[in-house]
């Protein structure tokens, strides 16, 4: 119909109900646009994103032989995709479409109708100038490797692994501790149902071990990540147990035979309340059921002088191998789920609570291990002085909700402390139990009822932030006790209450090495350090890197039900990619004009996604389209201007600027 080189623009300004029309005179803007060069059609419409709105575009493309479309409406983050699809259905390359934000960038932030409408016209002119320079671009498809790597073998990693394994996907579950189970393996009864953590966890752990589709690597860490979405190469380091995993049957004869007759070394699983030998198994149901030898404390590994009674005890299986070294292995996967969990707050950071200074100040996790019958005290609650406490005080929000330590709420401590309080009261009905709180947070099913039950059991609640735990006694019944000084804000005075034992409800934080881990996987984190989700409501398990997902407490403090839900969600998101077989790469990537590249290498180190590499043969830089996220850093930095970014070429940007400036 028309000269194919002639630019024919269709312009649409959306009212968005009153969101835009309430501040901008949309008909006037449409009228203004109609007079601009190359504009063939100019309309205003109530809701451009609706079906009729989209059909309007499609109809106009055919009817008026349009080859460029501009929509002035909301943020591209919301509907750029919608309109691109509509344009494509209308028979035009979707990248001949440009979207102008006259809502978040205009009507929602201004209060002068006149000026806002003028600004919308300037924005319109800019967009129309720009879109003329748009080129037809194609979305590239990259095939997805079907295997999955899951980092972290806590309940999140376990659940995600089982879900994916059951769906027929091949999973590598990498856990850096010698056993899977994470924090949940340490718990006794879980709130609010008080069902036993080990009873519900261990069946899942053994399912993981025996699952045909899951390769379980414990005492292993990921050390390198290369490749791009759908095609990752992960290097995994296997730490030496000094035990041949294939041969060990977990009989633990070696532990009994060890030259250390009694356990001497701090037992980390039992929060250092118990002791272990250099050869040990973290807990009886550890999976895999294999012992390990700690090179820091094993006499043989440290001095070379040992009778090696362990080797004698294992004579029939010969599973002990002191020559083991760390090994590295590379796997190819298409998607990765990071489920590395959390670490607990170190209460030494709050010296006024006396942790470490007074023997009978414990953390909630330490008490958890004590009340657990498989723990270091066989289920008895005993102070470090060897005596059973007749009064126990719980202090909540230790390290959390505090500008001096961690600002956030750790989400589970209220319920966790009430659970421990209930267990103490259950085992020792005559023990006086107090909980000192700022707020009691009991969300979720059964939680409020759990709180109610705590009150009925006679657990006493004092609302106030504890100022200090002291051994300064003012009255005779405070002698030899730990005195909790706290303002009882409901009663309106300061109280001093003596206890035999004080328990600190320590909060959750990101792991100490989470910054290294997130850099390894190209993930962002929030200001608190937890891994950042793509969208707090609509994409809680996706990250900003396609193909990499997060689940569980590494994304933010949460309880077991929410962790399992997120693990399932991450598995589903991974399955979306795997089952669709490929991933689409948006074409707004940068590319290097080889003949203009001078090989200066300035761009390579700048790329936050390590998408640029240097070709030794051609001595030029080259960009991996699949890794490039179109951030533009290299484009701006290139001294010879040889890097160009699709959709953000110099011509396109300058014409936009001219468009704004030429609007009178």
């Amino acid at each position: 119909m028309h000269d194919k080189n002639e630019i024919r623009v269709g312009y649409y300004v959306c009212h968005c109900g009153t969101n835009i029309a309430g501040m901008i005179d949309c008909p006037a803007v449409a009228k203004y646009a109609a007079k601009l060069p190359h504009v063939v059609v100019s309309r205003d419409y109530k809701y451009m994103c609706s079906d009729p709105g989209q059909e309007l575009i499609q109809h106009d493309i055919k009817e008026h032989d349009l080859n460029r479309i501009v929509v002035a409406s909301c943020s591209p983050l919301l509907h750029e995709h919608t309109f691109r699809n509509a344009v494509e259905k209308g028979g035009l390359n979707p990248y001949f479409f440009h979207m102008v934000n006259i809502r978040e960038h205009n009507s929602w932030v201004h209060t002068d109708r006149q000026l806002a409408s003028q600004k919308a016209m300037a924005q319109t002119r800019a967009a129309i100038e720009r879109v003329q320079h748009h080129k037809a671009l194609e979305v590239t498809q990259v095939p997805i490797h079907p295997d999955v790597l899951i980092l972290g073998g806590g309940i999140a990693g376990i659940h995600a692994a089982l879900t994916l394994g059951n769906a027929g996907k091949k999973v590598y579950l990498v856990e850096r501790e010698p056993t899977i189970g994470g924090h949940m393996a340490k718990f006794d009864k879980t709130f609010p149902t008080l069902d036993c953590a080990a009873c519900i966890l261990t069946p899942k752990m053994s399912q993981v071990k025996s699952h045909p589709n899951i390769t379980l690597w414990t005492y292993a860490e990921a050390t390198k990540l290369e490749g791009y979405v759908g095609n990752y190469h992960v290097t995994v380091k296997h730490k030496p147990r000094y035990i041949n995993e294939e041969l060990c049957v977990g009989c633990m004869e070696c532990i009994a035979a060890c030259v250390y007759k009694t356990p001497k070394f701090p037992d980390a699983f039992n929060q250092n309340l118990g002791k272990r030998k250099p050869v040990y198994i973290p807990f009886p149901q550890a999976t895999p059921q294999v012992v390990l030898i700690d090179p820091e404390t094993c006499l043989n590994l440290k001095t070379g002088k040992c009778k090696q009674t362990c080797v004698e005890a294992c004579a029939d299986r010969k599973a002990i191998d002191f020559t083991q070294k760390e090994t590295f292995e590379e796997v190819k996967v298409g998607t990765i789920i990071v489920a590395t969990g959390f670490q607990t707050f170190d209460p030494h950071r709050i010296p006024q609570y006396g942790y470490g200074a007074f023997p009978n100040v414990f953390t909630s996790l330490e008490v958890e291990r004590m009340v657990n019958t498989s723990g270091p005290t066989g289920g008895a609650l005993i102070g470090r002085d060897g005596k059973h406490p007749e009064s126990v005080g719980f202090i909540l929000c230790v390290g959390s909700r505090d500008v001096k330590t961690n600002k956030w709420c750790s989400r589970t401590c209220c319920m966790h402390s009430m659970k421990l309080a209930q267990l103490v009261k259950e085992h020792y009905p005559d023990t006086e139990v107090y909980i000192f709180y700022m707020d009691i947070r009991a969300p979720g099913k059964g939680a409020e009822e759990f709180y109610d039950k705590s009150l009925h059991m006679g657990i006493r609640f004092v609302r106030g932030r504890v100022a200090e735990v002291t051994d300064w006694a003012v009255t005779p019944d405070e002698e030899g006790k730990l005195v909790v000084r706290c303002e009882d804000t409901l009663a309106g005075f300061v109280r001093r209450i003596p206890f035999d034992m004080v328990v600190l409800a320590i909060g959750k934080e990101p792991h100490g090495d989470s910054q290294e881990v997130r850099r390894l996987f190209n993930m962002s984190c929030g200001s608190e350090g937890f891994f950042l989700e793509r969208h707090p409501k609509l994409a809680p398990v996706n990250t900003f890197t396609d193909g990499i997902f997060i689940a569980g407490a590494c994304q933010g403090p949460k309880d077991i039900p929410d962790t399992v839900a997120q693990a399932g969600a991450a598995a589903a998101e991974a399955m979306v990619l795997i089952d669709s077989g490929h991933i689409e790469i948006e074409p707004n990537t940068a590319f290097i004009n080889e003949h203009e590249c001078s090989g200066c290498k300035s761009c390579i180190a700048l790329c936050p996604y390590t998408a640029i590499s240097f070709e030794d043969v051609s001595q030029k830089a080259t960009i991996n389209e699949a890794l490039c996220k179109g951030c533009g850093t290299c484009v701006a930095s290139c001294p010879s201007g040889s890097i160009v970014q699709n959709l953000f070429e110099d011509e396109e940007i300058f014409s936009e600027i001219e468009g704004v400036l030429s609007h009178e």
Partner: protein
Amino acid sequence: MKYAYFPGCSLKGTGRSYEESLLPVMQTLGVELEELHDWNCCGATAYMSVDEVKACVLASRNLAIAEKTGHRDLVAPCSACYLVLNKTQHYLQDVPSIATAVGTALEAAGLSCKGNMPVRHPLDVLINDVGLEAVKKRVTHPLKGLKIAPYYGCQIVRPYATFDNAYQPMTLDRLCEALGATVVRYPLKTRCCGGSLTGTMPEPGLHCSYQLLKEAVKRGADMLVTVCPLCQFNLDGYHDQIEAKWEPVRIPTLYFSQLMGLAFGMSQTQLGLQRHMMPMKPLAAVAA
């Protein structure tokens, strides 16, 4: 080592023995404290509570004079002076209106204050600049058998804890141990002595000091050692009233510099011990 030195009003008045003991002790360790020329009262807690801006101007004049000396740091032994001078520096940084007011006022006197000269406590200088090893070397009369309750008071740990932990400070403890004394566990080491309340509201004010003395006695201390002239005064000067209201808790309270002087072999009179109220009975076994 040379430092600028701000004595403050107390060290020239009721807290005279603090200065009398601090200067020679520091000299023995090779530290020279050069008193500021024409310094003025820092305003202490009183003025800060009445008019913050004027209080900062008052304190800043001293900082301005100190900055002119060219010394690296300003040493302020009195806890209140130490805190006020530090607080003023913080306010000059954080509150533009105060910085402007101070600048204008000082200008009228031909002075200016940058507010960047570190104001340090002598304990800080002893532990970090001189070092406890150097202190130990000077000990000729180790205070063996003397049981000390180290009392820091509040102003050198709150709100700024620059050279020691705010809740469990240990610098004074370690200093006393370096002198050969036994330090008793004292949970009230940073609890307020009552401060100026002993003058304005005697009952609660004295009760604070009473509790400190009572716990020290209970823990078996022979004496309290302190860093602040007002703490020393409160703990030493009201024993009759304390006994009348509650019970006798008669143990002496010394400045740490006096304790150091004794360990270095100086005489009690040299160190101004005769100025204190409580008899120095526990020192009979150790003093020169």
